[in-house]
């Protein structure tokens, strides 16, 4: 078949499709239930969609299938115990959950971790971001109908998990951050090993870029689907890569002054003007590359010294209130900690990124076709533990 033949055939096919669309179809209303257990929901989200033919008229996410009562549980735990609990909010990037809470407690106690602990914290923070987003990139392929990327993601994610396990002892939930520093220093040879692993993850990003983002089918399923303009994104409180993909140049790593060492590294905040599913996924790919860059640069700049300041053995946080938010893999995650001077917090309000990110689902799904539901949900990227807590 020559090229002109193929062009003619595709022209005829498109004409036929147009003719079919022009005929007024008799459509029927239908309610489609997705979940609570569906691969596209990253856990147990349920989405009720009312359809007219193949078009979504109305959609609503039903959260709460993974609600474990975090905010209530933190009231009956001591401060060090809360850390092990909040590891499990966003289970793909566990270490990133600990940091804002510990920073809030340190703010109340008016202490600061030593410089060495700050740099190691930042490195582990970025490693957990890589572990999180690399699985997203693999899972994205599965949801678009390509199986291979997820095997690549699981293979290369193991390098990062090994590093986190080597440094903290926990493969999944490190529970490594302490008020006033870190539990331990880095083991011998860890820095060298991390350099090798980061190189492998950079190769993984290139592979995904070729395999997935260079794929024509993938592009045609992603581009122009689920466009979220910047003002709507702001209204719904989107954060993280979802906001940056709509052109909002806002990153808490850069835009606020926290005792983390992001200013030691030379890196870039990526934004995209389009605001479609493609842009959201592409931003995440670029962010993984930036995280690799940050880790690679910080590894050479770890200062000598202790990893723990002097804190009392039994930690009592003085009375007060503190709010600290950081740029987690999924977006802005913050803790509002109220202390009454006891062993444990009086009240902890958790602002998790995914809860706000899925609040846009009814808006974003209105009027789309059924296959695009999965595209939009996949590109919004939420984790159920992060939504329901």
């Amino acid at each position, binding site marked *: 078949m020559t090229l002109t033949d193929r062009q003619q055939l595709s022209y005829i096919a498109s004409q036929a499709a147009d003719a079919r669309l022009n005929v007024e179809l008799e459509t029927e209303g239908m309610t489609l239930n997705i979940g*609570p*257990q569906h691969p596209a929901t990253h*856990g*147990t989200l349920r989405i009720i969609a009312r359809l007219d033919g193949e078009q979504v008229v109305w959609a609503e996410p039903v959260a*709460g*299938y*993974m*609600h*474990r*009562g975090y905010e*209530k*549980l933190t009231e*009956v735990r001591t401060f060090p115990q809360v850390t*092990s*609990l909040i590891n*499990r909010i966003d*289970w*793909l990037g566990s270490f990133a959950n600990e940091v804002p809470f510990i920073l809030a407690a340190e703010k109340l106690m008016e202490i600061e971790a030593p410089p060495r602990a700050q740099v190691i914290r930042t490195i582990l923070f970025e490693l957990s971001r890589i572990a999180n987003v690399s*699985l997203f990139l693999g899972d994205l392929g599965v949801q678009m109908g390509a199986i291979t990327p*997820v*095997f690549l993601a*699981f*293979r290369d*994610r*193991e390098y990062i998990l090994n590093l986190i396990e080597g440094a903290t002892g926990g*493969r*999944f*939930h490190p529970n490594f951050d302490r008020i006033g520093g870190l539990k331990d220093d880095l083991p011998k040879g860890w820095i060298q090993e991390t350099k090798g692993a980061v190189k492998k993850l950079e190769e993984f990003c290139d592979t995904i870029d070729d395999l997935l983002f260079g794929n024509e089918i993938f592009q045609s399923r992603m581009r122009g689907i689920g466009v979220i303009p910047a003002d709507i994104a702001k209204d719904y409180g989107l954060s993280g890569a979802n906001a940056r993909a709509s052109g909002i140049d806002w990153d808490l790593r850069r835009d606020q002054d926290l005792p983390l060492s992001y200013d030691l590294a030379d890196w870039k905040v990526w934004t995209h003007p389009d605001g479609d599913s493609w842009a959201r996924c592409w931003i995440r790919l670029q962010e993984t590359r930036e995280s690799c860059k940050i880790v690679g640069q910080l590894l050479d700049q770890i200062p000598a010294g202790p990893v723990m300041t002097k804190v009392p053995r039994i930690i009592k946080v003085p009375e007060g209130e503190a709010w600290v938010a950081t740029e987690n893999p999924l977006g802005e995650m913050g803790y509002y900690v109220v202390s009454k001077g006891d062993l444990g917090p009086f009240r902890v309000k958790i602002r998790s990124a995914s809860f706000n990110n899925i609040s846009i689902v009814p808006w974003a799904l209105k009027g789309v076709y059924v296959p695009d539901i999965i595209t939009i949900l996949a590109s919004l990227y939420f984790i*159920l*533990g992060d939504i329901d807590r």
Partner: protein
Amino acid sequence: MGLVDKGRLPAPLTKLFNLSRSYSLWVYQWGLACCAIEMGAAFGSPRYDVMRLGVIPLPASPRQADFVCVSGTVTDKMAPAVKRLWEQMPEPKYAISMGSCANCGGPYWDSYSVTKGVDQIIPIDVYVPGCPPRPEALLEGIVLLQQRIKNEDMAAKWRGDEFTTLQRTRAMEAGEVDREGELISDTRSISDEPMPEVAAAHPEPIVVGGGPIE
């Protein structure tokens, strides 16, 4: 499987059937929380590669599955869905409970919304402890489940009375049943001793890295 339905199979045939059953297990992945990722690592990653054990992690629906791996926190809102899934699976069916949350509630033992153990809803064959367990632990749980399937009395399993070969052997050793599995009750019927409870509601669960749960 008419042979199995009618009654007891010849021993070599049972062995053959059990062997083939244990090495073509289709698992339904009921991934709920953190453990789902470790389950994904065990089932979907090239490093752990569960398919070498003869486990196929691909069924699209519980109706095609031989066993279910409940991994993660089961909340009270989710529990009816877990129960419904279990009822949809065809016999013979098995269940693995992965992770502390599914075993007993785990770190949410005092939470108001978490079901303290999925065994309140469905019968569990293998418990895999850990928070979350490493993929290797899940693989060991699967190997232990395969050993259980190999030792099973198929006819009894098909009838659904859950009276496995393991328990039959124990009952025989205790002198409660004869070789055919019938109750030895000729002398006991006139004595004052209470009848021995032979057929348990469910076989004893296996715990990875430990003994049976009391």
